[in-house]
């Protein structure tokens, strides 16, 4: 089951670039939360701070507090431990090119040393079913490579891979932006399915998408969070003028 996320005065830098400035918010457990805003506003950087992927870049720096459940991720744990609890799906599908579909899904467990094959079989099947890919690939799980699938299928494979480690939080960084409309709607259906079991944070530049899948929405602008509220409120009656300008398309 998912857990909530509490962010207190989070700041992030790329070299001298102050990309996130004093972010504070509470992301509810077992719901989908969307982050919107123009490109370069810091929303991707923000989700990368939630699983400490931000710091894989040597010029990056973070200050502030992030609590996932009751774990202070910058104090009480190492990056690998956090990333095992917080799954991530990236903008472009990135299956492991040399691995079969099966191994792709099992990668998070196998590469962490899990050896029980009977359990792995079960987990792979369950994860692929949860990501609505099982029916399309069940006959050549170990025959086909992850890279041989279509773009939309690859992205669902990446979701299955993230689900296989049974995360508490699922971060999605514009998961549908590289996909065609049919694949996009499949991904959205999936998010809808998954949000009762996982805390989902989805970055998107597509406002309709945010409105369709998320209960809560945050609007980012120039490295600051301008407004965070229920999706309904944000899209019908935002409190901030800038939010209104953005969602009505009057922006820049």
């Amino acid at each position, binding site marked *: 089951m998912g857990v909530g996320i509490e962010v207190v005065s989070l700041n992030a830098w790329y070299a001298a670039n102050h990309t996130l400035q004093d972010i504070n918010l509470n992301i509810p457990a077992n719901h989908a939360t969307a982050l919107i805003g123009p490109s370069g506003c810091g929303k991707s950087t923000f989700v990368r701070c939630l*699983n400490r*992927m931000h710091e*894989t870049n040597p010029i990056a720096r973070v200050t502030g507090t992030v609590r996932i459940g009751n774990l202070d991720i910058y104090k009480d744990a190492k*990056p*690998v*431990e*956090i*990333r*095992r*609890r917080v*799954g*991530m799906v*990236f903008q*472009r599908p*990135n*299956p*492991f*090119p*040399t691995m079969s579909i099966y191994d792709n899904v099992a*990668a*998070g467990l196998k*590469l*962490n040393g899990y050896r029980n094959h009977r359990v792995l079989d079960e987990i792979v099947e369950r994860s692929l079913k949860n990501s609505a890919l099982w029916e399309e690939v069940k006959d050549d799980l170990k025959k086909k*490579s992850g*890279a*041989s699938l279509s773009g939309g299928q690859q992205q669902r494979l*990446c979701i299955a*891979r*993230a689900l296989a*480690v049974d995360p508490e939080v699922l971060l999605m960084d514009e998961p549908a932006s590289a996909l065609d409309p049919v694949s996009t709607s499949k991904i959205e259906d999936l998010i809808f399915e998954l949000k009762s079991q996982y805390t989902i944070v989805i970055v998107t530049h597509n406002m309709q998408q945010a409105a369709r899948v998320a209960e809560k929405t945050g609007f980012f602008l120039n490295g600051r969070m301008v407004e965070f509220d229920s999706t309904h409120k944000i899209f019908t009656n935002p409190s901030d003028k800038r939010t209104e300008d953005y969602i009505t398309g009057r922006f820049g």
Partner: protein
Amino acid sequence: MATGLAVLSTGLVVAPLVAIFVYLIYKGASSLNFAFFTQIPKPEGEVGGGMANAIAGSGVLLGLASAIGVPIGIAGGIFLAEFGRGTKLANAVRFTADVLNGVPSIVMGVAVYGLIVTPAMPFSALSGGVALGIMMIPTVTRTTEEMLLMVPHAVREAALALGVPNWRSVLSITVKTASPGIITGCMLAFARVAGETAPLIFTAFGNSNWSVALNRPISALPLEIYRYAISPYDDQHRQAWAAALVLVILIVTAVSLVRFVTGRGVLKGAS
């Protein structure tokens, strides 16, 4: 005019190559027989015998060389691509690898002679293997680095985001993804040292008896080719051609395999 000159020079380049190959195959094939692979050399001047000892010796030397050159080379490449990117240390290592690549093989022999060959162990398979192994390092390092850099960053991120430890991600994901290219680099390095003669003359030294011991002088195909080519006996010339053919087949197979792998796209589907 331009066309004529270019075609002419191409012809002039292709001609000696074809001549070398044709002559090599003609002389080598007519000299090759079963005894070549199974017998050791007969005393000077006698007809017959083979190069079983040199084939085994080359095997031992190349095995030793690979055991030294491949791991160090790959590790160096991993450092350059995964840990040292953009650092001064990485630039220095890269430059040093290029320097090492340019060191004439005979000089490598002189240095290894001074470092390893001692009165207690005059000439030995070990010293020959070390000399060849060192020569493999720069090629393996540079190709490993290039191949690792071709692995998309997204693949690394995917592994890290799963909570896979960095060392595991590097070995099981990045290196594995680039492995066809890395193997290619190792084969190129292998092919290059398989024919090296100069550094062996005063390290491995050569041995006309059967010997695969690491602390004794050992024979090698290129050494025998050299020795036999400048000897006065026809039968030894015959053997030299046979040895040359065997060596070239080994090398051409390696290079063609490399060509085949790279031609198909080293990282097919990895983008």
